[in-house]
């Protein structure tokens, strides 16, 4: 069967529908998830099919319902919680990092927490400092959690299905600017395993590791680089944990040059880790230092001309890459 074109939002919805049909223990809770289908409309129609026992509107209690998901996951449900903006994971850090992430280990392997937190990341929506952050580095830091950053409709669907079937707490970050972006999605059932990076574009001269919202940016930059005679390989790790170090390292060893682009803050974040991994393992094959590009280290400003400066762009990725290949 040929692939269909679906939006990112549709792909996510499809994953949820399929998994909810397959397994009656899968349920969703969050703010305005039922009739409203979330402000981003990602869940539209789900309550109609699955009923308000399985698609449950909550009060504005992110910590509370995340923790309820932990307890529900331990006792027979597979909850998918919806945290509207990734900025609000601040409120869930105790339930995610001190509870969900540790239950399995602390209990000597006896209890499991098969839950998914779906949330968002990404700026340039003119939503200002408390609705624009990309805080996936925090969860990536915590043993016991898995962290997923899909960059295409196809990946979003396949990875979300894997997340729901996983027996561990999984944080699933969706770029809110990407919900309407379209891409091919297979007709037939499929899942995508965690810890397998995807080479989104093959190249010879430089490796660009890019995550989530930055994958399209990197691909755009790769197009510009091609015109400048530079062949860029673009790799999407897809999950920051587990991290497919091998694919990243081998690519950097092949090209001899690498940069990392991630929309989180550059400092003490995802780009730093991936750069450190490559710089260490590919050390003897690198012809230039590994460069990083992340969000500018400022609270995201509201003013459009300022906000646009804070996020890596095709142009800024192109420039850094070109400089690296000099």
């Amino acid at each position: 069967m040929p692939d269909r074109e679906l939006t990112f939002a549709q792909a996510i919805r499809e994953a949820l529908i399929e998994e909810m049909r397959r397994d009656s223990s899968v349920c969703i809770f969050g703010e305005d998830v039922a009739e409203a289908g979330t402000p981003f409309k990602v869940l539209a129609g789900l309550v109609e099919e699955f009923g308000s026992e399985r698609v449950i509107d909550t009060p504005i209690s992110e910590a509370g319902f995340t923790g309820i998901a932990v307890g529900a996951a331990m006792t027979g449900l597979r909850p998918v919680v919806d945290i509207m903006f990734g900025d609000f994971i601040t409120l869930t850090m105790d339930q995610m990092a001190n509870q969900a992430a540790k239950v399995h280990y602390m209990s000597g392997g006896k209890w499991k927490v098969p839950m998914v937190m779906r949330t968002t990341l990404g700026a340039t929506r003119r939503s200002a400092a408390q609705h624009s952050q990309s805080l996936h580095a925090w969860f990536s830091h915590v043993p016991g959690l898995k962290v997923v950053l899909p960059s295409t409709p196809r990946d979003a669907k396949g990875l979300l299905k894997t997340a729901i079937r996983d027996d561990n707490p999984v944080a699933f970050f969706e770029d809110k600017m990407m919900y309407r972006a379209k891409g091919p999605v297979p007709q037939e059932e499929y899942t995508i395993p965690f810890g397998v990076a995807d080479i989104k574009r093959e190249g010879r001269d430089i490796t660009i590791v890019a995550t989530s919202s930055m994958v399209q940016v990197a691909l755009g930059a790769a197009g510009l680089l091609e015109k400048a005679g530079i062949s860029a390989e673009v790799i999407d790790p897809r999950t920051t944990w587990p991290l497919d170090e091998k694919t990243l390292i081998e690519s950097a060893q092949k090209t001899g040059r690498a940069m990392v682009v991630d929309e989180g803050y550059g400092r003490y974040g995802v780009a730093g880790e991936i750069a450190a991994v490559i710089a260490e393992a590919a050390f003897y094959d690198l012809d230039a230092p590994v460069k990083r590009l992340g969000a500018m280290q400022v609270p995201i400003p509201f003013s459009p001309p300022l906000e646009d400066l804070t996020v890596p762009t095709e142009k800024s990725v192109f420039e850094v890459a070109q400089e690296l290949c000099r």
Partner: protein
Amino acid sequence: MSSATRSELGSEAAVERWLRAYRQMLSIRAFEERVNDLYTRALMPGLAHLYLGEEAIAVGVCEALNRDDYITSTHRGHGHCLAKGAAPDRMFAELLGKEAGYCRGKGGSMHIADPATGNLGANAIVAGSVAIATGAALSAKRLGNGRVTVCFFGEGALGQGLLYEVMNLAELWKLPVLYVCENNLYTEYTHYEETTAGEIPGRAAAFGIKSETVDGQDVRAVYAVAAKFVAGARRGDGPGFLVANTYRYHGHHVGDISREYYRPKEEEQHWKTERDPLKLLGSWLLKQGLADEAVLARIAAEVNGQLDAAVQFAIAAPYPNPEEVDKDVYA
């Protein structure tokens, strides 16, 4: 009281108060209508949450405050800022991301703050400012400067545990803070009864905090209760909790146009026609003979003129320089 002479209603000061309140409520109304218009004309970046229909609360409460008293506000904050004394031109400038805005364009609609009017800031995290407000009250008590802090929030904030943590502290420490819960019946797209167990006043009673529930469309009722709480707080009686029942006329934000799936048109219509705070105050002023139609029309003309000018100012104002982007991260 069927009708009243000026003297029965008290001083000139009281007359001035209600005319001022009328003007202030009208300013908020006119401000928000222009925001909606800017959005519709694609002149405003991002979204905005309009205070239309809820004007009496901000105005009634702030009428009970001094200029150096503090407020904290929410995503639906334009009314609070204006009622506390902010200038519409600099507010519009902020909404458009211009350098002349209250936050140099960095905050936007949801983060307007202004030390000059005691505005500690709007907040885009639901209940995000309840602790900040309580902290300001702690300062006021420690520094003995007599200031009171008002903490505005929507009934959705009742879902956040932080509110209960700080109410406990406010009562234990007898802090001069008034929690104002604006119950407009909905969070984003969900009726509050689906998300709120028990009765709202019980949430304050749990901590021994006195509460009162008022008609949030009646600015005089709001003022009366707020003034009582504020005076008590200033005296050292500790915190108060005011529930104001109200309604937002428009969507959750400017882009929320099709609302029938979560609330009926008739309900909206009912509030707009029967419970409009401006109409209620206006007809009371007329009935009491405190103003005539001409006075109200003049106020309206002045307000509309001012706000048109304010919009023009904001549209014409320049964006911040690119170099601004990484200024003010650290003090």
